[in-house]
C-alpha cells in the first residue's frame, strides 16, 4: 500500500483544489442576499480536515495554506487568520491524531470536532482581543455545530471518491519528526 505513484498524488491534489473552488463557487452564488438566522456548515474546513486526517499526502501544507488564504480573501474574512488556524489544525491532525486505521470513525469524529471547536474559539478570541467586529455568537455556533455534524458525511463521501485511506504507518514523511 505504501508506494503511491506521484501521478496519483498530484491528481488527488488537483482534485482537492477543484473541490475547494467548487465549494467557494457555490458559496459566492448570489442566491440569497438577505441575512439569515443560521449559517451553513463550513464545507471547505470540513473537507480539508477530513483529508488531512485520512490522506495527509494529498493535502500538503502549502496547498492548504494557499486555498485557505484565497477563501479568506474571497469570503471577506480578515485575511490570514482563518488560514493560519486551518494550517495549524491540518498539520496537527496529520501528525498527531489517530486516523481511521487506528480507531473507528467515532474517535476520528470526536477528534475533528474538538479541533473545529478549538479553531472557532481561537478565531473569536483573536478577533475579540484585537477589537475587530464579529458576527453574533448564535450565528457562529450554528456554523460550528453544522460543520461538526456534517463531518461524517464528508468523510464517507471522500472515501467513496478517493478509495481507502493510505495506512498512516506507511506514510513516509512527517510522523517521525513531529512525534
Amino acid at each position, binding site marked *: 500500500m505504501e508506494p503511491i505513484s506521484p501521478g496519483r498524488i498530484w491528481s488527488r491534489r488537483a482534485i482537492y483544489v477543484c473541490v475547494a473552488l467548487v465549494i467557494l463557487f457555490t458559496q459566492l*452564488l448570489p442566491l440569497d442576499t438577505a441575512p*439569515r438566522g443560521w449559517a451553513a456548515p463550513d464545507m471547505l474546513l470540513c473537507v480539508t480536515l477530513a483529508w488531512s486526517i485520512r490522506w495527509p499526502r494529498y493535502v500538503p501544507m502549502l496547498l492548504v495554506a494557499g486555498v485557505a488564504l484565497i477563501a479568506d480573501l474571497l469570503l471577506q474574512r480578515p485575511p490570514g487568520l482563518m488560514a493560519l488556524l486551518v494550517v*495549524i489544525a491540518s498539520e496537527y491532525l496529520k501528525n498527531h491524531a489517530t486516523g481511521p486505521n487506528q480507531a473507528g470513525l467515532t474517535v476520528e469524529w470526536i477528534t475533528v470536532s474538538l479541533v473545529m471547536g478549538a479553531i472557532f474559539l481561537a478565531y473569536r478570541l483573536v478577533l475579540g482581543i484585537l477589537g475587530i467586529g464579529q458576527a453574533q455568537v448564535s450565528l457562529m455556533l450554528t456554523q460550528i455545530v453544522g460543520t461538526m455534524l456534517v463531518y461524517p458525511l464528508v468523510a464517507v463521501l471522500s472515501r467513496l471518491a478517493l478509495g481507502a485511506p493510505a495506512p498512516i504507518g506507511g506514510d513516509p514523511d512527517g510522523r517521525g519528526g513531529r512525534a
Partner: protein
Amino acid sequence: MAKERAQTHDYAGPLRRLLLIVVCAMLLALFLFWRIDSPRVEQFRAKVVDRIVPNMDWAMTPVTGLVNLARDFKSYRRLAEQNQELRSELRQMQAWKEAALQLEQENARLLDLNNVRLDPRLTFITGVVMADAGSPFRQSVLLNVGTRDGIVDGWATMDGIGLVGRISGTGRNSSRVLLITDAASVIPAIIQPSGQKALVAGDNTAAPVIDFLENRDLVRPNDRVVTTGDGKVFPAGLLIGHVVEDRSGNLRVRPSADLSRLEYLRILRHHGTEAITDPGGVVAPEAPVAPLPGDGAETDAPETGPQASAGDG
C-alpha cells in the same frame, strides 16, 4: 524513486517544520498587517477578487438562474392560493395606485409652482450582481462594474425603490457593495415626518437598528427613513425604509429595497454636496456683488450651513 524517498525521509522532519513556521509567520504577518493598515490589504483583496470572480461569471449566471428557476417552479405548487393572495393584493394596490396618481399630479403641480429643478447631476449607472459575500457573517454583493465604468468608493447604490448600500472597494471590472444590513454599515438618516436625525446601523439581521435617535417619542412605526446628506457620502433624500419595532422594543428599519433577491442595482453618481463657507455679504442694490448660490434665507443661519445645504439636495 526509492532513493528520492529515502532522502526526503532524512530531511523531511526539520525542513517541513521550518516551512510550517515560515508559512504560519507569513499568514500571521498578513493578518496583523491587515489590522494595522486595512485599506491597503483591502485594495489587494479587491484586486484578487477582481481577478478571480469575473472568471467564474460564465458559470455563475446560469447556475443562479437555474436555481432561481427551480425555486420559482416549487412555488407553482401553491399556485391557487398564491393567485388568491395576488388578487387581494392587487385590489389594495389599485387603491394605492389611485392615491399615488393623485399625489403625483399634485406633486408635479407643486414642483411647477415652485419652479424646482431636481439635481441634474444625479445620474446613475446600472450594474448586475455577480456574487455575494459568500459568508453568512458579511452582507455584501459584487457588481460587474468597476473603475473602468467610473465607479468611485462611497457612492450610494439602490434598487428601483430603496437604498441597498454603498460602494466599498472597487476593482477594474468589479466593485463591492456593502449592504445596509452589514455590521460595518452605518448611515446617517432622517426620519420623516418628525425630522428626527439618527444613524441606521446594520447588525447582520434583516432589519438594521436605528441608533442615536434624538427623541424616541416622536418616532412611530411605519415612518419613512431617508438619508441625510451628512457626512458628505450620500446624496440626501434617498429612501432607506420604514420604521418597525422589534419584539424587545428597539426601533429598526425595514429596508424598502428587496435585499433577498438583488439582481440589478443602480449606482448613483455623486459629486459631493457643496458647502457654504462664507457668511454672505451685505446685499446692496447697486454694488456688483457676486451672487450667492442660495438666496437670502440660507445666510440667516450660518452655523448650520453645510447641513442646510445638504438638506436641500
